[in-house]
């Protein structure tokens, strides 16, 4: 309906392969970015940054990482929060041992550490797949949980077992207000999103998808399963690691090992199922969904109580569980490719408007 594609022809491959090939899409995305970067910082409240936007953005990044592994490469991971934990603790230790290091460098290093562990835990994927791999990743989750809970070195021998961080500083800029945190995270997430998009449209991304769609055929045309799978694990863990470090430093500030539990892992998985497997956009949608639903429910509580339904906070959290569970089943049955797919269909419909799809 809003698309006017006549005359938007491509005369080079570069134009043809650009990420946002349609002018109207470009306007929309650039508009959105401008809004997020220029308007939101002045208009958002602290609550909005702290409770909604910051967790949403960080969790989106982790979901993108998981999506690269599960949605693009077809390797299941039930323990992705473990990689976030690794990123968070790695960053913590780096900051402890190298104070004053630029936080961007810290983030990258934390990601790299996480990527290394990711490769390690990805090794079973060369042998096993599907359900079996799921269990292997669970092993990673529990083992990592245990390591950070018990090995004192990682928590710098803190007595409580938790760790706490000082405000992040870089280039002489102390990121301490929620708004500053938001802007910093937004930029990081944008850069990483662009890189993820580049990866999935490049040959590495195609080799992941080939492994996902038909692994024997992929091997026959010369894709090395080891390379494809381990790079997916590495990149995915890298993203999770960066997200974890930001989660720890910029969202939580101080945390305990339980912050990256199996439930976090499952939530990440739900994000990509609901948002859309094999879609970068889906990772954002799913993250928004999972972040917003509990908030929406808690906002709705007084309303429900006014209506005469007795719903307390415990009930609300149970309700949340039920809604998540039901939605997962719903999406797996009705639209296994998630909301992103619905979005794509809607977009296709708009492009064909007024004709039916």
């Amino acid at each position, binding site marked *: 309906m809003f698309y006017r594609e006549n005359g938007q022809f491509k005369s080079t491959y570069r134009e043809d392969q650009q990420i946002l090939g349609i002018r109207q899409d470009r306007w929309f995305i650039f508009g959105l970015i401008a809004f997020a970067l220029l308007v939101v910082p002045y208009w958002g409240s602290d609550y909005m940054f702290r409770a909604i936007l910051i967790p949403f953005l960080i969790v989106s990044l982790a979901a993108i990482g998981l999506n690269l592994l599960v949605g693009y490469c*077809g390797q*299941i991971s039930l323990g992705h929060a473990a990689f976030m934990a690794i990123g968070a603790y790695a960053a913590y230790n780096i900051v402890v041992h190298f104070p004053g290091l630029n936080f961007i460098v810290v983030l990258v290093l934390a990601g790299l550490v996480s990527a290394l562990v990711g490769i390690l835990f990805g090794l*079973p994927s*060369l*042998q*096993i*797949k*599907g*359900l*079996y791999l*799921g*269990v*292997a990743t*669970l*092993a990673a989750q*529990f*083992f990592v*949980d*245990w390591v950070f*809970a*018990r*090995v*004192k*070195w990682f928590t710098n021998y803190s007595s409580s*077992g938790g760790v706490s961080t000082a405000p992040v500083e870089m280039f002489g800029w102390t990121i301490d207000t929620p708004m500053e945190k938001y802007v910093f995270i937004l930029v990081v997430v944008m850069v990483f999103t662009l890189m993820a998009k580049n990866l999935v449209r490049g040959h590495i991304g195609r080799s992941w998808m080939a492994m996902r769609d038909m*692994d024997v055929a992929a091997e026959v045309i010369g894709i090395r*399963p080891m390379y494809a799978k381990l790079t997916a694990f590495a990149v995915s863990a890298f993203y999770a690691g960066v997200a974890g470090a930001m989660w720890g430093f910029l969202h939580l500030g101080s945390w305990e090992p339980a912050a990256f539990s*199996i439930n976090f892992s*499952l939530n990440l*998985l*739900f994000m990509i*199922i609901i948002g859309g497997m094999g879609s970068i956009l889906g990772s954002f949608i799913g993250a928004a969904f999972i972040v917003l639903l509990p908030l929406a429910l808690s906002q709705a509580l007084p309303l429900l109580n006014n209506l005469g339904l007795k719903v307390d906070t*415990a*009930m609300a*959290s*149970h*309700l*949340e*569980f*039920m*809604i*998540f*569970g*039901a*939605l*997962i*089943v719903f999406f*797996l*049955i009705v639209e*296994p490719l998630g909301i992103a797919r619905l979005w794509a269909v809607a977009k296709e419909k708009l492009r064909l408007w007024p004709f039916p799809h």
Partner: protein
Amino acid sequence: MATKKNGPVIALGVVLGIGFVAPLLAGQPLGFFLEVTLGGLMAGVLYSLVALGFVLIFKASGVFNFAQGAMVLFAALALARLAEWLPGWVGIPAGLPALALAFVLATGIMIVLAMLIERIVLRPLVAQDPVALLMATLGVTFFLDGFGQTIWGSDVYKIDMGISKDPTIILESMFQGGILISKEDLVATVIAAVLVLGLAIFFQKTATGRALRAVADDHQAAQSIGIPLNRIWVIVWAVAGFVALVAGMVWGAKLGVQFSLAQLALKALPVVILGGFTSIPGAILGGLIIGVGEKISEVFLGPVLIKAFDLAGGGIENWFAYVLALLFLMVRPEGLFGEKHIDRV
């Protein structure tokens, strides 16, 4: 090949061997070791019970039922709360009679639940990728967790089977101080044994059981000779629900009925990997191995690790099962008793 047949024996041997060596290293008495082992075996029985549910469903429908733990919690909650409420509703005496009636009602509830899951979740997803099915059961897990706590409540509840919590000391003559053992655990073991025996008879002797086995062997073939898959699935899920109820009862009696039951039930995953996804004996033996291995490693390996790595406490049992399963997957993905056909790359 020789190694394959001896696999289970070797595995158990290794676990026990570690146990025998560890106390020697730690300078602990053998009686204590046996006590720990027995404790592990008792815990293992509980794992086995949950694992049984997994295996049943996987055998019949190829679904890796992540929700088995949630079913255990749901069943235990239903049982505990019904036993609590029934006296007030129908005037049945509290205690064992109420528990018995609650058990019957809970069985009915689990059967209805099984039918609903089959109808609403599994049937639309038939012939889907196993990973998609796994994720669907993840959804079911969340739903059941929420739903169960919404209707049954979310506090810690007790199931009183009328067995004294006092430990018994046996084999006093053989070891100094004897071996401490809980009656509850003994009862649990007996119940588990009865259940397994019952299942074995069900599978071997009844027509439904044979149909189930046929389905497990070959879906298409079973369908082509007129075995209705949908009904079989309902039955299997119902049986798994019943197994969950028993596990929930035994576990609930021991630990109290609470949310952590669902998480504990996750332990059954490594158990089935160890035992093989399709083997009932494998599930039982796997449960025992994990149970024993966990306890032994916690008690004997724990201090060693704590000393070596300056740990803030043990908790090895949190990951032992998974890491063992992971190693097993690398070496012998079909498990101890599983069929050779495996989802290998």
